[in-house]
């Protein structure tokens, strides 16, 4: 009993409060998103998404208690085993899984389905943390780097096979963890630059402008920098590579991306080009959020989300309900809560004594950040439409439980951070 009281006091309550706030707000919004005035069902009605979400929330409490009770050493010890199991399940999904909404990502147990990919996130996070935390693991070691990329690559590929590109892309967020743990920033910078150039290429119709800008920049760098042969040749090679990337954009767009993905990118650049076709989601989502004004239309008063103008309004596009019914104030509160969560988790990660726990903490923050940034970004037209949920807000048991487990393992590890020193 003493131990129980102990751990209760050591839990990071600020994080838990933020979690609770997000989950409860999420539940209200799911009710609002599916609310139909003419039917007037209650929030608790189990035939509604909000009613079922309440069950998922209740189940989360059980899961949280389980996580707290289990010995903290379990998570590090069984990380690889769990990783193996989840890989097996991910292989199984395309074979025996059931198809929901075009994605074959569900494993059915009776009438109840779960998405292994949602759980793959925290299990991979554990595995990544364990690998980084291994004694003698060096971030600047190429072999270690390859092992890490293999670790995140495996589930990514398997999830891609389920055609769930969004969830697969979440695994790229581990780059932040690698960066924090000492991997050369080169990779991150190159990645961000490539994405930046890619989008710039799409935004600027005539690529000659881009090429011109690069050549001018190159000339300026050569003229005003040290005129060493090596520096100049590096700059020239770099410029040629960048221009090559620009030229490849068309190829990537037309040949690598699938038609619906191409359209999502096109919709990002110019949603007005076909507001009824591929621009529909983004256009309607922006209309819903944009019509909210400063204070919003009021709880259950939204028209765009309720009348199905916005697709997927209780899952991927749940933020539209917040934007429409609560306006900028509500959006501000939600963004602020997420900011608080992210910064708090960084704070927690930084105070960990073990590299495993810290790396895990950064995995948590990276995954949350990726979901937060991509999901809200797509609803307001800053990112292409990538179907991933907004943590704690989007309707769905698997997602809620996945995020809950992800967060609460960190809280559990954090509660025992003092013990790590004792063990050493």
């Amino acid at each position, binding site marked *: 009993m003493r131990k129980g009281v102990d751990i209760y006091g050591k839990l990071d309550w600020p994080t838990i409060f933020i979690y609770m706030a997000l989950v409860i707000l999420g539940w209200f919004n799911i009710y609002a998103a599916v609310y139909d005035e003419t039917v007037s069902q209650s929030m608790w009605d189990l035939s509604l998404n909000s009613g079922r979400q309440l069950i998922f929330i209740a189940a989360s409490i059980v899961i949280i208690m389980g996580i707290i009770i289990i010995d903290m050493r379990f998570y590090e010890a069984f990380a690889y085993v769990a990783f193996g199991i989840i890989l097996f399940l991910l292989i199984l999904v395309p074979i025996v899984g059931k198809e929901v909404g075009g994605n074959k990502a569900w494993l059915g147990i009776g009438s109840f389905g779960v998405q292994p990919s949602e759980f793959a996130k925290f299990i991979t996070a554990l595995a990544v943390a364990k690998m980084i935390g291994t004694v003698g693991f060096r971030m600047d070691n190429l072999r270690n780097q390859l092992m890490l990329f293999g670790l995140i690559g495996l589930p990514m590929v398997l999830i891609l096979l389920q055609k769930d590109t969004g969830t697969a892309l979440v695994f790229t967020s581990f780059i932040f963890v690698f*960066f924090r743990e000492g991997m050369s920033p080169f990779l991150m910078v190159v990645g961000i630059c490539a994405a930046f150039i890619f989008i710039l290429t799409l935004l600027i119709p005539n690529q000659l402008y881009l090429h011109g800008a690069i050549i001018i920049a190159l000339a300026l760098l050569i003229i005003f920098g040290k005129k060493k042969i090596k520096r100049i040749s590096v700059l020239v090679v770099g410029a040629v590579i960048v221009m090559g990337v620009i030229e490849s954009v068309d190829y990537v767009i037309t040949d690598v991306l699938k038609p619906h993905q191409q359209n999502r990118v096109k919709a990002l650049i110019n949603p007005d080009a076909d507001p*009824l076709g591929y621009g529909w989601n983004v256009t*309607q989502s922006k209309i819903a959020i*944009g019509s909210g004004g400063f204070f919003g239309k009021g709880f259950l008063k939204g028209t765009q989300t309720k009348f199905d*103008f916005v697709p997927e309004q209780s899952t991927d596009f749940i933020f539209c309900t917040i934007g429409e019914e609560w306006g900028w104030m509500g959006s501000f509160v939600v*963004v602020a809560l997420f900011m608080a969560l992210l910064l708090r988790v960084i704070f927690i990660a930084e105070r960990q004594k073990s590299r495993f726990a810290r790396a895990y903490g950064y995995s948590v923050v990276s995954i949350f950040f990726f979901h937060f*940034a991509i999901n809200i970004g797509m609803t307001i037209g800053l990112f292409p439409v990538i179907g991933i949920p907004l943590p704690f807000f989007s309707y769905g048991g698997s997602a809620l439980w996945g995020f809950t487990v992800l967060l609460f393992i960190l809280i559990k590890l954090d509660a025992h951070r003092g013990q790590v020193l004792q063990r050493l």
Partner: protein
Amino acid sequence: MNEGRKEILQIIFILTGLVFLVKLFSIQVLDNKYAELADSNAILREVEYPFRGLIYDRNNKLVVYNTPEFDINVIRKDIKDFDSAKFCEVFQLSRTELRKKFQEMRARKEYSPYKPTLFIDRLSNAEFARVQDHLDEFPGLYVQARTTRSYTTTALANALGYVSEVSKGQLERDKTKIYKQGDYIGQSGIESFYEEQLRGKRGVKFKLRNVRGIEKGSFKDGDYDTLSVPGKDLISSIDIDLQQYGELLMKGKSGSIVAIEPGSGEILSLVSGPSYDPNLLTGRNYSSNFVLISNDTLKPLFTRPLMAQYRPGSIFKIAQAMTALQEGVIKPDTRIRCDRSIIGCHGNHSNEDLRGAIENSCNPYFHGVLRRMLNKGISDDPYEDTRIGLEEWNKHIRSFGFGSNLGVDLPNEKGGLIPNVAYYDRAYNNRPWKFSNIYSIAIGEGENLVVPIQMANFAAIVANRGFYYKPHLIKSIGEEGPLPQYKEKQFTTIDPAYFDIAVDAMERVVESGTGQYRAKLQDIIVCGKTGTVQNDPLPDHSVFIAFAPKDNPKIAVSVYVEDAGQGARAAASIASLMIEKYLIGQTKRPHIEQYVLNGQFLY
């Protein structure tokens, strides 16, 4: 080695959050576009077209009513899985027609894939019944019900006018901004003149709807909704049975019949020959029918009773007589020799008094009467004397309602022409003119132009012994009675006492004069005057004005039949048949009716 990396990540996260908040602020607070788009998404503005007012005849028989007609609108973004083969089958269209409909729809200026756009217009009740059950198979189709005009008879088309879609020019001229493209508006006749009373007021309902266009209740509990107000019903002064009879009589002839109730100025019938079936200018085939009718060389759309300006002929002699009596230049017993050397005459008479001159329609008599009027010797200069006399004469003649618009409640009324000094100065290019130049106006020929309704009104004036009410077709707007100007008595400049002489003379015309063969009725004293208007090289126009009964007259008629010869034949027959029909209900002279229907007046 990893110094500052935490801060870099923190900065990335915070920047992302800030970028989101700024972007959200810009689309939610700064940009109103989205709120408007949301409204147009979810708020359906449903127009409720009012019922156009009905039109009844003077005996409360329904003449014009509304039947539903249906426009099929399309919201293109709502079209899903469009089965064009099925659609063609249901709507009985060919593939090419369907393609054309889509092209037309997209070509419309107001076309938007978000909003209902007109796709198929003016389905009749029967056509709509056929497609109604299939409509839900085609998401994106919406029905807009409104009404079109229908007519209980084929009569009265010219007076009623027609209703059609408001034209571009009309929209531009419409300062009130009441009309929207696609609205209907009265284009002629009563429909146009009483448009304001007939149209009613449109209602608007704001409804919430979801993305599939399914209604989700009213917007703000209907606070912004307005109810449509139906147009006012009109009670026409027309006797539709008499009108139909008149149209039957005018069949195959060009001309007009106007019958007026003298005591009120109410028009009992307004026949324009040839006419058209008003049902042709309603519904879907409006456009093609309109082209056919308006290209017809007989000009059925030309409302002759109001628009055809004719020389009045001998009926004008009554007005001359009244004017001369008022001016004191003749007395009833003044005799003037029938000197046929200046102006021709007909019949066997030589030296009549006024009544006899009217009875025999003596041309030289009235030549003499006009000479006395125009040359009264006020001035020694015969030219100046004529000018003074003509202005006096013109004033009196105009007081009968000749020479300017009567103010009938129909558009496009013509005023005719009664020449005055200024007119002849212009006509003679300021060269001098005197009585001998202009004497043909004495017998209703020459420069005089009169429209048939003025002739009927003139008959009414004589029937009333000196006054009239402006002729009008609508005796009551709803329950309100006629427009105020139709309640004002109009007086001529002639002493009422002189009219008894005219009445006596007109009685004698029918009793024993030019009208005795075809205008005389058994039980009713008809007072009339024939006119035969020269129309070289074609046959003369046949003219007759009449009223009956002599005392307390109930009906005044003018009949003008183009190219039909003597007034005593076609026009006198038709006028008397109209009087008989109105006063008795049917003719007791089938041979006269048959004579008119045969239409062989020239022999």
